[in-house]
């Protein structure tokens, strides 16, 4: 079974996570700029005089579809690389994927990952 991992991480951790995943053999991924809100309550920014609060903070969403057996390893890798221990480190969600197709080759399912 294929799984989709959606990880919301700190933007400044993207390089570290990318490198860690690469080291463990995972290259394919999609990255999106998002804004997030959670335990971390937003931050105060400077205005001309005084400051204002921003509720949403810039985050990076990483999406990677992996074979089921690689899923836990990938999650661990991301967790380790993305962690700072302070609020705002982010969340990882795992979703089921029914199928995957590589547009170039029209390969389907797991085979489209295996045949490098």
């Amino acid at each position, binding site marked *: 079974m294929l799984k989709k991992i959606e990880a919301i991480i700190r933007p400044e951790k993207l390089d570290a996570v990318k490198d860690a995943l690469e080291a463990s053999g995972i290259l394919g991924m999609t990255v999106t700029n998002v804004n997030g809100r959670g335990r971390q309550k937003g931050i105060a920014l400077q205005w001309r005089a005084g400051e204002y609060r*921003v509720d949403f903070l810039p985050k990076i969403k990483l999406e990677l579809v992996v074979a089921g057996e690689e899923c836990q390893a990938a999650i661990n890798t991301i967790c380790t690389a993305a962690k700072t221990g302070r609020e705002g480190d982010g969340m990882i969600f795992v979703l089921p994927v029914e199928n995957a197709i590589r547009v170039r080759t029209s390969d389907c399912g797991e085979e489209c990952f295996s045949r490098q």
Partner: protein
Amino acid sequence: MNSGDTAWLLTSTALVLLMTPALAFFYGGMVRRKNLLSTIMMSFAILCMVSILWIIYGYTMAFGPDVKGLIGNFSWLGLLGVGQDPSTVYATTVPHLAFMAFQATFAIITVALWTGAVVERIKFGALLAFAALWFTLVYCPVAHWVWGSGGWLAQLGALDFAGGTVVHVNAGISALALALVLGPRRGFKEGETMEPNNIPYVVLGAALLWFGWFGFNAGSALTAGRLAANAFVTTNTAAASAGFTWMLLGWIHRRPSVVGAATGAVVGLVAITPAAGFVQPWAAIPIGAIGSVISYYVMVWRAKANKVDESLDVFACHGMGGTWGALATGIFATTAVNTGGSGLIDGNWKQVLIQVVAIAATMVFAFGVSWLLAKALKATMGLRVKDEEEAVGLDISQHGENAYGGV
């Protein structure tokens, strides 16, 4: 006629003209993205409109032959008699047309200044209507009072080198009046976050304003000589001093902010405007610094009070900055710089009183007329866009455009 003076006045005119688009970016960067174009367009459309109104009837109303100290008569309507020969009254070493053009740029930017108070919610048609009326009924008279030959404040001896009262107090107080009548933006009372969409634009605008302001102040010497050099130096010094001070104020509070430094520089330029050709270079340091302190705390107070949504703080920056500058002119003016003006440091305490009169007269008149005009437009054509248009943003709703196109 003097070619050096003419070269300088034409250059200065081009510099001041550039200040209105600069203002467009200064303001445009501070609003939310959905209103970026709309904010820019306010300045741009006013630049077009006032350029035309000025040559048709504005110049003669402001600078034409005096009627009882209150207004110019209509003898120069459509620039009749305003030609390539120098005027015998104003800037006698350059073509009259050059002086006229220089003054045009002041009228334009003054009208554009108060738009900062009404961004993100005013109907574009109403903005233009108010601008045309305000230009006619507020700017032209006040310009005549202070700068017109025979104007009553000029007669009284009010000092205003490049527009502390005519431009900044005038625009700042009118901004307040218009904002009061127009009402706050949706979400303002609820404390909704309104993030500046593009701080680099704010800096770009401030930088071009600073650059153009050399034309504004040093150009107001109307000759390329001693006084222009003095005004040039005081202008730069006040901008720097105020920019640095504002940055420090932010730092004391929390962090040295970029929008803060840019705002401070503009406030410093405002404060030195009436004084530039009357005070010594060193005096520009306190004039700028105190200007920043005043505007900063007025802004803090306005934000805390949360009563009037004078959105980009035109009153705090220009109204208060201009007021302080006009007073400072009364304090620091010295005949060592300009035989035309002596202030408190020369022992002439009366000058401070005269300055107060000029400020008060401008404030009362401009606030009153602006309020009435705003009320009248509100009752007739309406001032605000619909709620829904405001939510979508004025770029789309008023202009059918997106700042940044493409998926």
